[in-house]
């Protein structure tokens, strides 16, 4: 008897859960149901943009989409959770059940490979030709997101991963003249800060340490050798990589107690407890935004930035992009959304709010000020390298293996074991 009630209750709960999963944002209640006989067709846009800044950017793009496409309604299927952890798990079950959203957010580059291999995505080369996107996106970007000549996503923004954030007051107190340019200078600066009793380098949870590793690898190896690590037949066992990992170990030995996530680690720099933090440029919004979503700090006085040591002239990039899943219920609507996401107007509406720069070269530069102006300038001139932690250079299984190796390394501090694990990860997952 009881198990029957349990089963009934479970069925009701499952119903409620699936309803709420489809519900998306609270403002969706008044919208027509999917697949109904309404005149307006619904476009389900799946993302993980629910936080301050990013959700505002999505709203701004949505407004443009609705103006341009009066026959479609926008269905916001956003799933909360930093860097899309939960969203990706839900997305995977949707794709396996052959009920994809009309378009979903993913990091451009190798992260999409799993979906491509599973045959979940349509290629977008014809859309690129139609909109002449190859002329407006940097050629290196096109090259790094192409899989055997085919492109499967439309990048809507660009973030930079190799940014060194620092507290000018703490540096001055420790007698460090300015942002260190090389890894050797970086270690010397860390040592000086340590002597003053402050935290030389703040870190967050384990993924932020992988994030640190990619900047150290790039800074130690240089752009070309770094990019070569992700090509077939790459040599992860080389003495150059050993040296880079030794430097990583040295730098990590100056790290403070790990914080819960990247925000508390960044806050240590803003509060003057720590000198340095290496984090992506989304940290700028956190430092700079008014207190509801950020720390309300003054740029250049309370915090400052520079390329991560040894990486000046290279943009270690990552990008949020939208895709066209095979079997999308509303393919035309999805294409209409992709056109907005690719357009100058769409990107200029989205990016200043999200705190990133547009992937297009012809953006309205006056919209991007302070840090973003710097970033836009560097983006147009720098060499490009793809981020590991954020899905550009490596696919998801590879990244999981790298994160595992780094997590184990934090316990053992064993460089040969780390290098072996990284080499094995590359060999098992190279595309």
């Amino acid at each position, binding site marked *: 008897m009881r198990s*029957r009630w349990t089963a009934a209750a479970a069925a009701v709960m499952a119903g409620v859960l699936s309803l709420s999963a489809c519900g998306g944002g609270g403002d969706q209640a008044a919208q027509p149901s999917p697949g109904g006989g309404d005149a307006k067709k619904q476009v389900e846009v799946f993302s993980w943009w629910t936080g301050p800044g990013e959700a505002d950017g999505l709203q701004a793009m949505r407004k443009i989409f609705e103006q341009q496409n009066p026959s479609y309604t926008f269905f916001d299927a956003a799933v909360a959770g930093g860097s899309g952890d939960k969203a990706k798990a839900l997305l995977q079950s949707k794709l396996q059940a052959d009920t994809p959203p009309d378009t979903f957010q993913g990091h451009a580059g190798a992260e999409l490979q799993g979906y491509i291999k599973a045959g979940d995505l349509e290629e977008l080369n014809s859309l690129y030709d139609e909109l002449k996107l190859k002329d407006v996106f940097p050629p290196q970007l096109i090259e790094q997101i192409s899989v055997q000549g085919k492109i499967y996503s439309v990048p809507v923004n660009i973030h930079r991963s190799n940014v060194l954030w620092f507290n000018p007051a703490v540096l001055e107190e420790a007698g460090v003249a300015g942002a260190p340019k090389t890894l050797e200078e970086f270690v010397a600066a860390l040592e000086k800060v340590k002597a003053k009793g402050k935290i030389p380098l703040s870190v967050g*949870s*384990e993924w932020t340490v992988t994030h640190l590793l990619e900047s150290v690898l790039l800074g130690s190896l240089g752009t070309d050798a770094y990019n070569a690590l992700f090509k077939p037949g790459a040599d992860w066992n080389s003495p150059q990589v050993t040296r880079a990992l030794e430097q990583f170990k040295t730098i990590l030995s100056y790290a403070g*107690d790990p914080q*819960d996530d990247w925000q508390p680690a960044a806050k240590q720099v803003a509060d003057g407890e720590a000198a340095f933090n290496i984090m992506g440029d989304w940290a700028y919004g956190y430092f700079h935004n008014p207190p509801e979503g950020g720390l309300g700090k003054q740029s250049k006085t309370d915090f400052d930035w520079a390329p991560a040591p040894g990486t000046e002239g290279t943009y270690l990039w990552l990008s949020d992009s939208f895709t066209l899943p095979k079997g999308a219920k509303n393919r035309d609507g999805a294409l209409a959304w992709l056109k907005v996401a690719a357009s100058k107007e769409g990107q200029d509406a989205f990016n200043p709010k999200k705190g990133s720069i547009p992937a297009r070269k012809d953006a309205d530069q006056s919209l991007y000020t302070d840090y973003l102006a710097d970033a836009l300038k560097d983006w147009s001139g720098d060499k490009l390298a793809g981020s590991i932690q954020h899905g550009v250079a490596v696919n998801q*299984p590879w990244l*999981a293996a790298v994160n595992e190796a780094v997590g*184990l390394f934090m*316990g053992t501090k064993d460089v040969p074991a780390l290098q072996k694990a990284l080499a094995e990860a590359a060999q098992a997952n190279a595309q």
Partner: protein
Amino acid sequence: MSRVRTWLPGLLLVAPSIVAIGVFVYGMLGWNFRLAMTDKHDEVSEGRFVGLENFISLWDQPRWHISVNHAIMFTIAFVLGALVLGWFLAFLMEKGIRGEGTFRAIYLFPMAVSFVATGIVWRWLMNSGMEERAVGFNRLFDAIGLPQWQWFRDPDWGMAAMALPAIWQMSGYVMALFLAGFRGVPEELREAARVDGCTEWGVYRHVVLPLLRPVTLSALIILGHISLKVFDLIVAVSGKQIITDVPAVFMWVAVFDSHDPAKGATIASYIVLSVAVFVIPYLIWSVRRERRS
């Protein structure tokens, strides 16, 4: 015909749940074990039968050893802690205190909170910040002059700290079990022991505790199986980090990050088997006991 009339409605009533449990519990268990014995290491490949290969190769991975060790340490700390604390609370209650109903409700209440909510609160309480950066317990310890600790970030004893929220959550439930057990011991037995010259401690040692054995065993089973498959608490406190890795978190990573269904199914199989090691002997034992009585 009349016999049919007695059992048929009952059967019809339970049939949906029998079917549902058959398919969604035992069917899925079987499917999981079958998947664990294939080489389906990504979502698209078909997967050939490879026998126990995955079960063996898992032991070559350092991360698996770490997560198993963590699960063992967590289980020991959690089961012992909840049993001792629950027993002690029940003991106090049994001695008769004023407002027992209120205390019972207070101690039982944490069980109504989800592990996720517990975890989010305890993440703050167990913050590893020290000295002037301390918050939560470390701030309190600093104020009263006790040494500060890294809590779940401690490389050696972190998983014991991770068991604290679980103990907090479940000891009230164990208390309720033990209290029912204590109340089930007839007063005459205690009286008889006292007449025979037993001390008050002796009454507990020789009369009450032996009679509590079935309760203790039930509590052990319930705590043990919660402990071996713990997932939500760990993720809520520390996320998917190696330093607090347990088999269930490793399974999530294998399925959703590494995209390796066979590996995930193998870990899931080990979790089910480890729980079965606890539960099956208990079931056999309780069936035998029922037959005997």
